[in-house]
């Protein structure tokens, strides 16, 4: 009887223990952080990927080049004209989230679209997909959406052995312009090539100074080896680490959001690129790092200088360990 009770408690943590660890809960995130530092009027800047991209281009943050935008149903038939000269591209909903409705075309030839997973689509299928997308199937709350067509990212081989299919990306959490925590998300068989932790992807916490793995989790449990590729996750190190952090840091001036997550992918030729920004980044990054966000936030409030520019902030993070 007592043994089984103890077992149940083993799954739970006492609130004071979490507090001591500086873990940020959902309510506290919404109240103290998002509610305080993220003005509602700024949300559209990051909820609309077209706008984010335009802003980023304005201050020379690397993003995949935009090929075109389809806003209305009658424009869908012009798709072929828009993508003329590109044999690979990505179609995605400007207001999408969690990878919903993202169509990655690896090869387009003779009227056949080949997706990243090898599926062959005809113009009709793609037409249908874009129509669905425009009607709001993938957008938050189901309102009308626009289709963003952009260049394909050629992922660096650096992580080839780590991710099972799919594209690994780095999520950097930025508080008041300072990158405070980050993780790399690796797709697994179970997550079906997607990089969302709750769908079974692996999260690897990254050291803020070096970009090296500190620990990895799958389904909230610590692991050392990727379940599908068997790669030793502890050897993972993100190249161009400073550039990664710089993208996140610059996003602060760009959007004015005091708290956000930046999703950054590494392109073979063009280096780190910002894929999207998120004004309500999830809390899983804490589990991947084994470290609480509240604690990190407190340190920024207490010790980090206030009037630095993006470059100086990144250097401050790289050179100071608290």
């Amino acid at each position: 009887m007592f043994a089984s009770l103890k077992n149940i408690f083993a799954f739970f943590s006492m609130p004071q223990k979490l507090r001591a660890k500086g873990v940020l809960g959902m309510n506290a995130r919404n109240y103290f952080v998002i509610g305080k530092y993220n003005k509602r009027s700024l949300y559209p800047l990051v909820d609309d990927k077209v706008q984010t991209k335009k802003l980023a281009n304005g201050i020379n943050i690397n993003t995949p080049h935009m090929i075109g935008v389809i806003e209305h149903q009658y424009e869908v038939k012009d798709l072929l004209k828009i993508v003329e000269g590109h044999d690979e591209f990505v179609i995605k909903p400007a207001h999408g989230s969690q990878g919903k409705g993202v169509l990655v075309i690896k090869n387009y030839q003779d009227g056949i679209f080949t997706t990243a997973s090898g599926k062959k689509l005809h113009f009709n299928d793609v037409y249908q997909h874009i129509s669905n997308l425009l009607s709001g199937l993938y957008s938050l709350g189901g309102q009308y959406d626009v289709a963003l067509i952009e260049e394909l990212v050629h992922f660096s081989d650096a992580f080839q052995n780590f991710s099972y299919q799919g594209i690994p990306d780095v999520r950097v959490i930025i508080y008041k312009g300072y990158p405070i925590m980050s993780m790399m998300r690796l797709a697994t068989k179970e997550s079906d090539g997607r990089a969302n932790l709750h769908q079974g992807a692996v999260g690897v916490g990254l050291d803020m100074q070096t970009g090296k793995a500190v620990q990895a989790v799958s389904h909230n449990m610590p692991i050392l080896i990727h379940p599908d590729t068997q790669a030793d996750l502890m050897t993972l190190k993100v190249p161009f680490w400073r550039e990664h952090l710089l993208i996140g840091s610059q996003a602060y001036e760009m959007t004015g959001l005091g708290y956000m997550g930046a999703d950054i992918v590494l392109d073979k030729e063009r280096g780190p690129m910002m894929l999207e920004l998120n004004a309500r980044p999830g809390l899983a990054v804490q589990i991947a790092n084994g470290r609480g966000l509240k604690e990190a936030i407190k340190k920024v409030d207490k010790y980090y200088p206030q009037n630095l520019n993006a470059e100086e902030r990144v250097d401050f993070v790289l050179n100071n360990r608290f």
Partner: protein
Amino acid sequence: MKKIFSVRGILGLFLLLATIYASVATYYKIKHWGFSYKPTERSDVWTVDAHISFQPIAGQPIEVSLASPSVGQKYKILSEDVVAQGYTSEKNVKNNRIIMKSKPRKNVQDLYYRIMLYDNADTKGKIYETAPKKVEKPKFEDEYQEGQIMDLLALADRKEGSSPQRIIRLLNEEPLQPEVDAFLPVKRTQQIMAEKIIYLLAVKGITARVVRGVKLSENKRSTPADLMVEAYEGSKWIPYNITTGKAGLPKDFITFQRGGVSLLDVTGGENSQIRFSVVKSVISSFKMAGRRAKYEDSRLFDYTIYNLPSLEQNVLKWLMIFPLGIMLVVILRNIIGIQTMGTFTPMLIAMSLVKTGFVSGFICFTLIVGFGLLIRGWLTRLNLLLVPRISAVVIFVIVIMQMLTIFGYQLDYKILATAAFFPIIITAWIIERASITWEEEGARNATKQIVNTLLVAVVTYFVISSTYIRHIMFAFNEWNIVILAIVMLLGTYTGYRLSELKRFAPLTKEK
């Protein structure tokens, strides 16, 4: 940090004030309007008719004075009426009498005094009063009479009980002892018996008086007033039944008059008599509350929901349960941390379950969603656009409901006939979302969300279907303000959710 404390402070103060207000309002409603915590829909009301009739004396102005029942005992007055055509009537509050006056009249007069009373658990027949004047011992005419009385009292002392009880029991013995038979006159009306008892008590030095009133019993027609004898013992008057000697005012006894004052005085008339009729009726407790408020001259009641026509009342009764359900949703989401499909979807399902009944509703809902998901799976392959697709699902849901209802009726399967109670659009959205979640996040996540949603719906159902809770939320609807304050305070809860204690547990594990 500081700001939240002041926000919390304001909301805390709001909660405090709301609680005080709600408590006062609840107290007022119970005290003055007779509301009850228990969901009793109806309450007993007694209508007592006093019918006065007399023959006017030609040429004389008429004045009728009737003792009116004293308030503040077991029963309370709900309404009071005089039916006397051409008479002026007024209530003499000081002497507690109803006075009716008229110019001289000719024919036999019939006047009615009607009161409506309701149960009011209060005094238990013991009326505390300042000590009356000590009774004067009656003088005996001769020694023979004195001997006769003393013998009677000696006989009485062999009976059981207190002095009044002994005397009453002696005088009502069956068969009577010869001494008693000789003492009592031939005509033994209630009035005479009461007088004899009082006389004998006076000999013993005990002050006593007559009590007149009506014992409430169903369908009493045209009976004379009931009599009791009250003796002053210790520091209080104790009433006795004049045939059984039982002490205390019977449960249903309404006192009109006590002591020397008369029950009815008629000047300008003769052969007056008074007869009582009693009718028991049942009215809705809220209607009764309205009557009480009116009797107390309170305008407040007019502006409550209880004064509305019953159709509107029923709609509001239904609405008054919402805030509680909403609070539950807030707690389950922000404190427990259960993820459901749509914020208020579980509550809407719960409300449908209240209408259909739990088991049948649950089975029926599962069937609708099950069939719906099958059809939706097939729709996926057709690759329809969003709006037409969800519209198709809506129509399919309607068709499924119709089929279930028809089959339910034909097969005499009541469970299925409840299908039509579920909100069509909501059901269609549940199907749509479940299907999308299924496709995108896998069967596990979709099932988890459906199960969570149903779980929350069931919990909500059990709260809002309880007749007790529903009655309280309607009768004491001021508590909704308290709920509002609580919900707003919950909006400042920044602690961990219960689910997060599990989610973040790996963070606190020592490696």
